[in-house]
Each structure stands twice: as structure tokens, then as C-alpha cells.
């Protein structure tokens, strides 16, 4: 018993150290680039630059939770493209209200994540293989959907209403960009979910030892599956924000996001074998390269 307490303290210390290191890197980065170019130091520029990386940050947050259970989700980028296409099609070609379209988009993301999670935890296929298949499937579906639209695939669907563009284009108090605000809110949600809730404890337990989790009466399959649902949901949120930021939706919007997301999660101190990791680490690590 005492051993485990000691271990826990060591482990927390380690995490704190790692997060401190990330903060130091971030400050160092700002100072170095700031001294190279004065304009970099202006707050709007600093906060504005996050727009380009916001989707990576958002997906990585919940990718961390997946990785803590010992899985991995590489289908996030594909879900971004798919939700973007779904959004465009529902709004332009089906003529739905933009907000209903957004909600349906989020449901799409949840369904994609649920399929991943079901195959991983109930059928027992490796997470990497399932999400690889998901990567092909969802990006393929996005391309198929793009051919259904009246707009050509290269132009993408544009001309969204102003309120929708405001999701990414608006700034709170004229300073803080909305995407950054969304990111902060998601950080808080993810933090509470992972570090302050019972579900979070279960996630860690499943990552450390699924058998132990199963013997202590936790429905570990459901816990693991739900992490993929969260990951899918976050990818669809990223898809909506990115679509709003760019003002048009394209099937290949999320291409190339896969690897940066995994990189951010790992840089944040999450063990790829599962059982260790933190939201703050990922949040910092996602911001540092950007």
C-alpha cells in the first residue's frame, strides 16, 4: 500500500516536471522568435497563429484519452474531412439550417468513433488496424460525398452564413479568437473528465491493466469504446471549426493531420503503451510546435 502511494507521488512529480519542461520550451520559443521578429510578440498575432493548428490541438486532447487506455486513434484526420463534407452537403444541397447541420456533423463524428470503438473493444481487433481501416473508410466516404454535391470537388462548398463563419472568425472582447476559447473549454472538459472524474480513473486502470479493471467490476470494454467516441466527437468539432475558419468545406481537409496528432499526444508525455498521460501535457505539447 505504501509502495503504491510512493509510486503515485513519483509519477505525479514526473508529470509535473515534463509539463514544466514544455512550458519552458514554450516561453523560450516565444522569446527567441520574439527577439527575431518584434511583431511575433503582439498578443493578437500569438493567439491568431493558433487558428492554423487548432484542429490538431483539439483532436490530440481526446486522442490522449484513447492512448491512455492503450489504444491509438489515427482516423481523426479522416473524420475531420468527412464532417466537413457532411456539413457542406447538409447545408447547401439538403438546405438544412446551419446549426442543425452542425449538430448532425457532431453525430457523424460520434458514429465514426463508435464504429472504431466497437471494433476495438468488442470484436477485439487491434486499435491501430481498426483506425487505419477507419482512416481509409472515412476519407473515402468524404470523397464520395464530395461528388454528390453540386459544387466541384476542387472548389469546395463555400458561402456559409456569417454566424457560422463567426465560430472561427470571431474574437471574444476583440482579442481572444473563438477557436482558442473552444480549445480552452475543451481542455477544461477533458481535464475534469480524465483527472477529476470516476470515468478518468477507469480509463487509467484500463490502460494499466485491463484484466484488473475487468475483475474489479468495471465494464472495461465500454470504457475503452467510449474513449473512441470522444475522439471521434472531438475530430468532428475540429472539422466544424476548420470548415468555419476556411469558409469552405473540402474532402481532403484533414489529410496530413494524423501524424501531427499522434506526435502531439506523445510529446505531451503520454505512454504509447497506455496507463500514463495527462491532458495538460498534451495541450501544451500541441501548442509548442505551433
Amino acid at each position, binding site marked *: 500500500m505504501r509502495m503504491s502511494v510512493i509510486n503515485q507521488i513519483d509519477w505525479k512529480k514526473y508529470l509535473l516536471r515534463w509539463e514544466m519542461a514544455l512550458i519552458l520550451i514554450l516561453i523560450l520559443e516565444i522569446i527567441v522568435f520574439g527577439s527575431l521578429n518584434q511583431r511575433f510578440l503582439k498578443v493578437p498575432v500569438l493567439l491568431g497563429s493558433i487558428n492554423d493548428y487548432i484542429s490538431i490541438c483539439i483532436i490530440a486532447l481526446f486522442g490522449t484519452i484513447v492512448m491512455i487506455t492503450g489504444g491509438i486513434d489515427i482516423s481523426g484526420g479522416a473524420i475531420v474531412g468527412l464532417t466537413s463534407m457532411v456539413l457542406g452537403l447538409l447545408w447547401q444541397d439538403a438546405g438544412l439550417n446551419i446549426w442543425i447541420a452542425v449538430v448532425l456533423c457532431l453525430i457523424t463524428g460520434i458514429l465514426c468513433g463508435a464504429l472504431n470503438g466497437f471494433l476495438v473493444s468488442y470484436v477485439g481487433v487491434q486499435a491501430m488496424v*481498426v483506425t487505419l481501416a477507419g*482512416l481509409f473508410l472515412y476519407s473515402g466516404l468524404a470523397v464520395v460525398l464530395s461528388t454528390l454535391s453540386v459544387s466541384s470537388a476542387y472548389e469546395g462548398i463555400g458561402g456559409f452564413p456569417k454566424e457560422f463563419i463567426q465560430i472561427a472568425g470571431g474574437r471574444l472582447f476583440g482579442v481572444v479568437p473563438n477557436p482558442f476559447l473552444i480549445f480552452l473549454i475543451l481542455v477544461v472538459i477533458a481535464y475534469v473528465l480524465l483527472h477529476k472524474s470516476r470515468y478518468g480513473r477507469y480509463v487509467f486502470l484500463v490502460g494499466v491493466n485491463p484484466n484488473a479493471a475487468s475483475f474489479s467490476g468495471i465494464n472495461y470494454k465500454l470504457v475503452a469504446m467510449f474513449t473512441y467516441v470522444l475522439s471521434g466527437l472531438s475530430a468532428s468539432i475540429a472539422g466544424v471549426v476548420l470548415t468555419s475558419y476556411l469558409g469552405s468545406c473540402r474532402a481532403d481537409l484533414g489529410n496530413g493531420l494524423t501524424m501531427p496528432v499522434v506526435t502531439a499526444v506523445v510529446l505531451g508525455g503520454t505512454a504509447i503503451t497506455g496507463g500514463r498521460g495527462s491532458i495538460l501535457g498534451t495541450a501544451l505539447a500541441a501548442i509548442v510546435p505551433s
Partner: protein
Amino acid sequence: MNKLAKAMTETRELFTIAFLVVLFLGTGLVNPSFLSIDNILLCLNGSVIYILLAIGVSFVIIAGDIDVSVGATLGLTAAVCASMIRDGSSLFTASVTALTIGAAIGLVNGLGVTKLHIPAIIMTLGVNGVVRGSIYVYTEGKWVENLPAVFKSYGQITLAGFVNLFLLITVLIVAGIHLYLNRANKGKYFAAIGDNVGGATLIGIPVDRTRIIAFVLCGIFAALAGIVFASKVGFVTPTAGNGYEMKAIAACVLGGVSLTGGVGSVVGAMFGAVIMSSISRILVFLQFSSNWDNTITGILLIIIVVADALIQKFFKEKARRERLAARDLKIETVFKEAGGECKCE
């Protein structure tokens, strides 16, 4: 159980081949012109690059690791090889340089994974980024174009009137590797390590060295694919090979190579690659739009891995039942010999 497991591992690539045959015959039923020899050869020719990548990756996967840097390696080696040939080097020098670069990238991967104990996916992910970046530095973001016609014509050379040179070489390589992996002592090291690292170490297999060799071979095959890419496509963009790493892994999975390591063969990986690169052509012959390409690939992957997981579960359960039944039987006979009554169920 051993026999069963062996049969399972051996039928994996047979399953893939059967699937390929069914796929081709099914397409042939709808559109008979698909089954002409010319068309089948075109299908095979088109998959040479993926076959080469998949062979390399299958080494690494069979040994229990993973390599996601082959796409960037392909791009860099293609760019280097193409630009050297454009600037007047001989094919030999350019190829050797490309292969050396590929081997060096593989060596870095292997050393990082075995000596620094970095998880393979992280290490190769990092290397992927570095190599992709160095393509931009090397080419200054420009396309490598204006390759000599001789170089581009290698892709069209045919032997005996119909067999493509690259295809022939690739098939020979696959046959050679298959024999090596299954007949030579050292060839079995890869699967042994992938199946059980601890056991492999205990019986004296040089684990680290073999894993490094797997990565180096993977790099070399990616470089080979790069040379073929430069010759077949005729120009190299800085984004050449983007996403090919995922396709190579998918080809391996389609071909029955298990990502847990220890199970699979290069022949399976080859046929997996053929299936994957033929899908778009099959779609065209079925008068679908080739936009469905990735969707179908994803669905096929899911079907195959789910079927595989369910079959394995079934056999595991069956083996467990047989073992329990055998144990009960044994206890029963012991009791009867002792003159007692069996109380066990």
C-alpha cells in the same frame, strides 16, 4: 493446437490469394474484358511500388515493430535518384546512392528503436517528419522533371513480349525472400522475435541485430520503390509518397500479416498490395466511379480483420474446450482406476 495454429498461419496467405482470385473472377463475370491477360498484367504492373513497400514493411511488422517512415523514404530516394540521373549520373551510381540513403534511414530507425528504446511508431514518425522535411530542403520545393527518356523507358521494358521488367524482378525478389524466411535458419529469426521477444532472447537469437536488419531492409525496399517510382512516374514532386506508408501497412494487413508480429509472409503482403492497388481499376471495370477507392479499401480492411479476429477467437475457444475436456477425461479415468466414483463435471 500447434498444428491448428500452423495451419492458420499457412492458410492466411492462401486466404488472401483466394480472395484475390474471387475478386478478379467476380469482376470478370460482370465485365469479361477485365480477365484479359493484358489487363491482369496492367493490374500487376501498377502494384509494383506498393508490393516493394509492403515487402519492406512486412519484415518490420513480422519482427513485431512498425515503420511509418517508408512514404518519406520513397519520396527522398526518388528525388535523389531522379535528380542525379537528370544531372548525368549513370543509373548504377544513382541507384546505389538511393539504396544507401534508404539503408541509412532504416539504420537510424533501427538504432533508435533497439538502442534508445523509443517505441517504433514514435521513432519512425519522427524520422518520417525529418525525411519529409529534407526532401523540401534537397529539392528546394521544386519538382524534379525533365528526366532522360531512357530512364523513363525502363518501366516499359518487357521480357518475352509481355512480362514487365520491374514486375519480374519484384516477383523474383519476393520468391527469394519467401524461401529465405521459411527455409533459412536466420530467416525464421524475424517471426520468432515478433512472436515472443523474451523467448527469442533466451534461445540465443540476436534480437537487437535482427530488428535493426528488419528496419534496414525496410529502408532499402522503400528506396527500391523510390527508384521504380521515379522511373514509372517520370517526375518527382516534394510530396511524392505522402500517405504511402499507410497504404503499405494496409497492404500487409490485407495480406494476413498480423500487426502483433510473428505472423504473416511476404507472399501475403505482395497479394495484399495487388488487391489494394487493383481496387480502383476493378471499380472502373464495374462502372463505378473510382472515387469509391478508399471507401472500398477501408471496408475490405475492416471485413478482413474482423473475420480474422472472430476466426481466431473461435479456434482459441475450441482449443480451450478440448483441453478442458481432455483434462476431465484424464481425471475420470484416474478415478475409475482407483475404484472411486467420478464427481467432476
